[in-house]
C-alpha cells in the first residue's frame, strides 16, 4: 500500500496488484453455487451487503452478482477454472481487473473522513467487519467494505474516477 498521511489521523493508499472477477449466477442453482465455491475454496455470501474472506474476498453486489477480489497474478487462472466449472450453468464470469482500483483508508479518523462524502451509517454496530455496500463517496459510486481490523476500510472504485477520488480523499483528510 502506498501511503499518504495528513492532518487527520488517517492514511489512504492504493492496494497494489489486485485483480477482480465479476460473477453472475443464479443463487438458487445450488449445484452451480457449490461448483463456484469449490473452485474459490470459500463460501459465496448469500446475505446481502456482506463479503466473505479467505484466499479471496467475495463481495455480494446483488442477489445474483458478486465481485471477487484476488491477487492480480491469479485472475486469469481463476477465471478459467470458474468458467470451466460453471460451463453449462448459464453463469457469467468476467475479468474486470482493468475496471477497478482498490484503496484502503485506515486510522482513527477514517470514519470521519468517509462521513464527509458517504451517506451510510458507518458506526461499527451498523457497518461492522464483514459488511460491504455499493454506495456513494463524494460524487462517485464505490464499493465500500469494513475490514477485519478496526478503523480500516476498503474502497473499490471505478478506475476512471480514481484520480478524482484520491484528490477528494486527500482534501477531506486535511480538514
Amino acid at each position, binding site marked *: 500500500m502506498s501511503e499518504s498521511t495528513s492532518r487527520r489521523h488517517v492514511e489512504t493508499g492504493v492496494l497494489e496488484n489486485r485483480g477482480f472477477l465479476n460473477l453472475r449466477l443464479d443463487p438458487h442453482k445450488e449445484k452451480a453455487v457449490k461448483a463456484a465455491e469449490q473452485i474459490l475454496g470459500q463460501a459465496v455470501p448469500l446475505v446481502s451487503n456482506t463479503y466473505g474472506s479467505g484466499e479471496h474476498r467475495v463481495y455480494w453486489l446483488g442477489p445474483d452478482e458478486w465481485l471477487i477480489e484476488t491477487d492480480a497474478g491469479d485472475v486469469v487462472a481463476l477465471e478459467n477454472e470458474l468458467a470451466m466449472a460453471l460451463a453449462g450453468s448459464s453463469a457469467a464470469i468476467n475479468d*474486470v481487473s*482493468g475496471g477497478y482500483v482498490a484503496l484502503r483508508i485506515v486510522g482513527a479518523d477514517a470514519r470521519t473522513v468517509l462521513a464527509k462524502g458517504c451517506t451510510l451509517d458507518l458506526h461499527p454496530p451498523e457497518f461492522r467487519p464483514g459488511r460491504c455496500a455499493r454506495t456513494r463517496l463524494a460524487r462517485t459510486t464505490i464499493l465500500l467494505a469494513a475490514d477485519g481490523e478496526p478503523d480500516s476500510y476498503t474502497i473499490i472504485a471505478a478506475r476512471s474516477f480514481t*484520480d478524482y477520488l484520491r484528490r477528494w480523499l486527500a482534501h477531506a483528510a486535511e480538514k
Partner: protein
Amino acid sequence: MQAAQANRLREGGRIDRSRPLKFSLNGKAYTGFAGDTLASALIANGVGLVERSFKLRRPRGIFGSGAEEPNVIVQVGEGAEAQPGLPATRVELRDGLIAHTARGWPSVRFDIGAINDLFGRILGAGFYYKTFMYPRSWWKYYESAIRRSTGFGRAPAASDPDAYEHRNAHCDVLVAGGGPAGLMAALVAAKSGARVILADDGTEFGGSLLACGEDVAGAPAADWIAGIVAELGEQPDCVLLPRGAVLGYHDHDFLTIAERCDSGEPVERGLHPPVRERLWRIRAKRVILAQGGFERPLAFCNNDRPGVMLASAVSTYIHRYAVLPGRRAVVFTNNDSAYRTALDLAVAGAAVAAIVDSRPGGGGELAIRARDLGIPVLQGRVVCDVTGRHRVKGVSVAEWSGDSWENISKTAHFDCDLLAVSGGWSPAVHLHSQAGGQLDWSEAQLCFLPSRARQCHDSAGAGNGKQSLGDCLIDGLRAGTEAVAKLGLTPIAIEAPDAGSAREAPIEALWRVPAEKEADRCLKQFIDFQNDTTVADIRLAVREGYRNVEHVKRYTALGFGTDQGKLGNINGMAVLADVLGKTIPEVGTTTFRPVYTPVRFGTVAGESVGALYDPVRQTALHEWHEAVGAPMEVVGQWHRPWYFPRDGEDLHTAVARECLAVRNSVGAMDASTLGKIDARGPDVVKFLERIYTHNVGRMKVGRCAYGIMLGEDGMVMDDGVMARLGENHFYLTTTTGGAAGVLNWLESWLQTEWPELEVYLTSLTEHFSTIALAGPNSRNLLEKLGCDIPLDRESFPFLTVRAANLAGMPVQLFRVSFSGELAFEINIGSHLALQMWRKVMDAGREFDIIAYGTETMHVLRAEKGFIIVGQETDGSVTPVDLGMNWLLSKEKDFLGKRSLARPDCLREDRKQLVGLLSSDQRTVLPEGTQLIEQTACGVLETRPVPMCGHVTSSYFSPSLGHPIALALVAGGRARKGDNVFAALPGREPLPVEVVSPAFYDPKGERQNV
C-alpha cells in the same frame, strides 16, 4: 477604553473582561469583550440608533437578542470575505471586526431616504405593484432604481476564500436546542445508551438559562449547565454541536445543521484553509425539538423607535452580556414574564418608571415581588405612543377597555430611555411544521402549540408551550425518556433538578393597542419591523380583497424578511383574524419552510467547488494525452483529448493534419470511453432481438454488426457496434454518454418485464480500454506490432472480431470503422492499455502515425455521413428519418417497432438526414443553423419565414477541401439538388445545396480492403 462602554455593568455576564476587543461599525471604532455579540457590544457603547428601516427608512435600533432580530442586519468583513445579511445579534465579536449597516445615506442619523417616512401614507402595501405597472415597458428602468435602494448588503464580487464541508451523520436521537429542556432530553437519552446529537444555534449551551438569574438544583444555572455538558461529553456516542443551527427538517427524518466551526478569529488560510462552516446531513431515528420560544412584540404607535426592545432581550443583555440597555425603563406587557425583566432592571441598577400591564387584574407572584421593590405597577393600562425619534424619550399611557377598535386618549406620560415590551410567547414550531406536524391554537396560552407529529419527532420545553423553568426541565426529561423507550432501549431514571417556578396570572389577548386617532390613519403600528409592515397595511390588504393569510403575506411582505417573520408573524395573523372577524386558528399560519436561519452559499456547496466541483473521469491513457499537451473536451464527466497540436498549431490546422494523416496513412485514437457490456445466457439472442432493430440471431459467431436501439416511442435512443463472441455470448458497445443509461435500460427490461429470460449483463466499460487504429496502414501497423492471427482480408474480413495476442498482450481485435478507412479497434484490459498505446505509437513511427482526438473523429465520420446519437438525433428522430430502413427487421418485433407505424412517423415531410454544401464553397455553417425555404419573391418576404430544418453537424473537410454539413431537412431525401437557405446572423441567408450525407467514398470501398 473601558469608560467608552458606558452601559457595561461592573460585574457578571458571560463575557471575558480580560479580553477587550476592538471593532468598528460604519467606520467608527468601538470596544467590547470576548463573549459579546456585535449587538451587545453596541448597546454597551450606548449606540442606540443603528440602522434605517427597509422601506420607510425609519430610525431603528437593536430590538431582540437572537435569530429574531429584525432591524440591525449588517455586513461583516470586507472584500472577498464580506458576509452580508447577518443580524448583529448573531455576530460573535472578534478583534478587528469590521461591520457596516446596509442603509443610511449619507449617514444613519441623517438618512435622506427618511423622506419616505413622510410619504408613509401612500407607501402602503402594494405600492410598488400599483405604481410601477405603467407604462409596462418602463419596468426595466423602475426595477434598476428600486433594486439599488433595497437589499441587506452587497454580495462580494470575488470568490469565497473560505473552506466548507459536508458531513453525514446518523443518530438515535437528535436534540435541536440546548436549553434546559434540550439538555435534559439529551442527558437521559445519552445515558440510556442512545447515540445522541445535540445542536444549538448559540455559542454555548444553556439557552434561556444564560439569560436569567435563576438557580437550578440549588446552584447558579451556569454551574448546572457546565455539569450537564461535561457529563454529555463523557458519553461515548454523544456529539455536541454548539454554534449548530438546525436549518431544516426534511422527509424521512432527515435534518440539516449548519455548524459555524470558527469563532470568527482571523485564520491562516494557506493551502488547506480550515473549515469555516460545516453542513451536517443527519438521519435521525427520533428527533426532539427543544428550540424554545420567541417573545412577541406589541403593536402600538411608534413601537419601532430605537430604545423599544423585547423584554426578554433586555434580560439577556443584562444577564448574559452584563449590559444595561437603559437607565430609566418602562415595561409594557400583557403577561407575567416581563415582570422578571423589570426585576432584572431594578437589580442591575436601572430605574423602572412603571410596569404597564394591560390586564385589569395584573400579574401573579412576580408582580408582588415588583411592588415589593417599589416599582409602580399600572394595571388595565397600555402604552399607546412613544416620543423621541432617534431614541425613546418617553411613553404615553392610556386606559385599556379591551376593545382595539375604540379610539383612546392618553392619561399619563412617563419619561424613559428604554421600553421593554412583551406580547407573550410563541413556541418555535418551525421545525415541527417543516416536518409536517400539526399546530393547535391554545386559547389559554394564546399561541400555536405543536400537536400531532407526522414524522418521528416530539417537542419539549418552551417549544412545547411550557412556561416555567421547572416545567421545561421536566418536559425535556419526559421527551428524552419517551424517545429512548420508542427506540426499544431502557431509559435510565433521572430526577429533574429543582428550579423555581412562580404562580403566574394568565396572559391577555392584546394584539393591537388602539390609537388616539382613527386607526387607519395611524401608520406607525409596526407588525413586521424588517419589512415595515404595519397594522394599516394588513387592513388595507383586507379592504382590497385579500382574505387568505398566504395572499396577505405576499401583498404586505409580512414575514418575508431574513428573519422569516419570527417576530411579527403571529401578531400579523392575529390582526388579520381581527380585521376579518375570524378566529386565529381559522386564519391559520403561513407555511414554515427551510431554512430556519440564513445560510451561506458556501455551506450548501461544501467541498464541491474548484477542482472538486465535478468528478473528472480519466481514461487509462490520460497520462499520455496530458504529457503531449492535448486540450481536453469534456464529454459527460470524461475528459477526452480534443486534438493533438504540434508546434503551436491551432484547432483547425491540427485537425486538418490529423484528418489527412488518417486518410493517407494511419492514426490512433483513444476510444475507451465507449460503453461496453458483456451479455450472455441461454436467452441472450431472444433478449437482444427485442432490444435491437436488426436480426441479431442471424449474426454468425465472430461477426460484428452496427445496431441501434429505439425507445418505446420509436425514436433512436442509442447506437453502437455489437459482436457475437459465442453462441450465447455477445459484446455490446454504447455511446459514451449513453453507457450507464443503456445498461440501466437493459436491466430494467430484464428485471421488471422479462424476468423469465436468463441473461446476465456485466459492464466492461471501465475494464476495457479501446485503441482505434484507422487508415490504409493500420493493418501494416498491426503486423509490425506482432499479431498471432492472420490479418488479411479473407481471414479477418470487415465487421468481424478475433481474440488475438498483439505485441505480447491479450486483446480483442475488431475490424470496424468509424472513419470509412481500413480500421481496427484494439480492446485491452485498462491496466495494460498505456503500455499497448506506447507500443503502438513506437511501431507507428515508420508510418508517421499520429494521435487524433475527438474533433478529427467527428470530421472523419461526418465526411462519411455517419451519425452521432445526440447530435444528429435529439429524441425525435426515427431510424427511417436517418435513412436506416435497412436496419429494421421485418421478421421480428423489437422495442419501438409499433410506434414507427404511427401516422406521424409515416409523414413524408418528416425531417430527414441529408448532407449540405455551402454555395460559396467557403462558409462552415454554425451547428444549429436554421434552414429556411426560398419563396417566390425572395426568402425574407413572408413572416414568419418558412423553416424546413436545421444543421446538426458542420465542419471543414480537409480531405475534400470544402465545408460539409449534416442536417435534418423536411422531406430532405427527395430534395437532393434543391437549394435551401441557411439563416446566418448578420448576413444574407446563404443558399446551400441538399446532397447525400455520404460525402467521402460513398461506396464504402476504402474500409473493405
